[in-house]
């Protein structure tokens, strides 16, 4: 099976527990994190995770992340890697 990756983007006001809640949820769904980067962009906490979602249900993951986003007060988007591959790689 071809490898499928998702790009998870998190933005919001920095506070303890954001990374923990997201990485725990990913572990609970048996999703491996391949890369993780965190920075502050225009004063906002910004984290990007690249996760291996081969054979996983992307919409279930999106629902979980929407729930966490609401609880943590941050915006989380979960998108298939292809959108970035098509837009930024020739």
């Amino acid at each position: 099976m071809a490898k499928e990756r998702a790009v998870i983007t998190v933005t919001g006001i920095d506070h303890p527990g954001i990374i923990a809640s997201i990485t725990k949820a990913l572990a609970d769904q048996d999703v491996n994190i391949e890369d993780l980067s965190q920075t502050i962009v225009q004063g906002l906490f910004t984290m990007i995770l690249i996760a291996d979602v081969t054979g996983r249900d992307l919409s279930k993951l999106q629902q979980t992340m929407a729930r966490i986003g609401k609880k943590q007060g941050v915006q989380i988007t979960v998108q298939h890697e292809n959108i970035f591959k098509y837009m930024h790689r020739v």
Partner: protein
Amino acid sequence: MIYSIEEILETVRMIQAEHLDIRTVTMGINLRGCISDDIREMNKNIYETITSRAGKLVSEAKAVEEMLGIPIVNKRISVTPIASLLDTPLAGKKNAIEGAVSVAKTLDRAAKDLNIDFIGGYSALVHKGFTTGDSILINSIPEALTSTDRVCSSVNVATTKSGINMDAVLLMGQVMKKTAAINPIGCAKLVVFANAPQDNPFMAGAFHGEGEPETVINVGISGPGVVRAVLSQMDNSDLGELSETIKRTSFKITRMGELVGREMAGRLGVEFGIVDLSLAPTPAEGDSVANILEIMGLEKCGTHGTTAALALLTDAVKKGGAMATSYTGGLSGAFIPVSEDSGMVDAVKSGAIGIDKLEAMTSVCSVGLDMLVVPGDTSPETLSAIIADECAIGMVNGKTTGVRLIPAGKEGEYVEFGGLLGGSYVMPLNKFSSAGFVRRGGRIPAPIQSFRN
């Protein structure tokens, strides 16, 4: 990281803050197999063909939307020009118009049952003359468009190869007028074309033309807001640099269309047709082609320099987009509909733009005079003359031009259509008559440019 943070955030920002979307995924469906000499039987065949082939269009579009995190605003269907189906069941019949309208209603019912936004192809191609089916269809347009909600109609009256059918131009002025008399909104679903593309995914002009496969997926992209946002950071750049930036942006936007088109076609098991790489505005603040021209340094869209700025924009969009997709098609360029573009509506309100400047602009961009509200008492001959002018521009320049006018209200009044159609101020027209010219009829011969063989 395999993608830089900047790249990822750029994509997310384009979608969330700058209105980047896939404007439409349009499924083209061949209906020739539905022809029957019994109109009821034909309607049944049409309904079954459309609903079986497009049964999963909306659900798969939703799935792709979720997977990629990019909105697909419209799900549409285009069908074989209906005029070509009408001869067999309706030629010589007393109630032929009624029969044609029943087909429009069938299309409307299929669109509603499938939850499709618009269905295009209530169309006729009459650039050289009328078949019996063409005449029936064209005469049924006023009733067909005002007794349905989602059916769109287009009539091709001119091509570079064959010239302008002025009998058809005269007739279409009358058809517009009759449609508006029943309900002006009907005119928002009617476009008169020169050089109509056969694979256009955008409404009101989409139809499934000759040479197309049984079923196909065509995609229309959008993103004036994205172009405006990148140009707004470039106050000190010269026009060559602006063009370069527009090209890069257009490439990225068009790639989204290519990706969504391939994904949709794969999921539905049909052929992928084309990406229409057009900047299509919406009434949303900032999602405006007029605003892009203003960012380039024009105080208001419509002032002197607007045609040059639009030429630069259209060309850069095409150059950037052409490399991003394997197959381009449809209208491809920049759209300048008036009521659907908040910047354009502002320009009309302030008197910066009028029909003469818009006509000039259509010589350097895709489409034509689109979504203009003109006075409700405009004569059919004046409407025909406006159509003839646009056809001449399309015919001589070997490009598509279209006319979508809505005769409603009085000069200066605001008329609202709602949704993506927006609303606009009634635009003044030239007060002098064109009746003597358009009533002559006949055909304007093809220009010398057509002899390319």
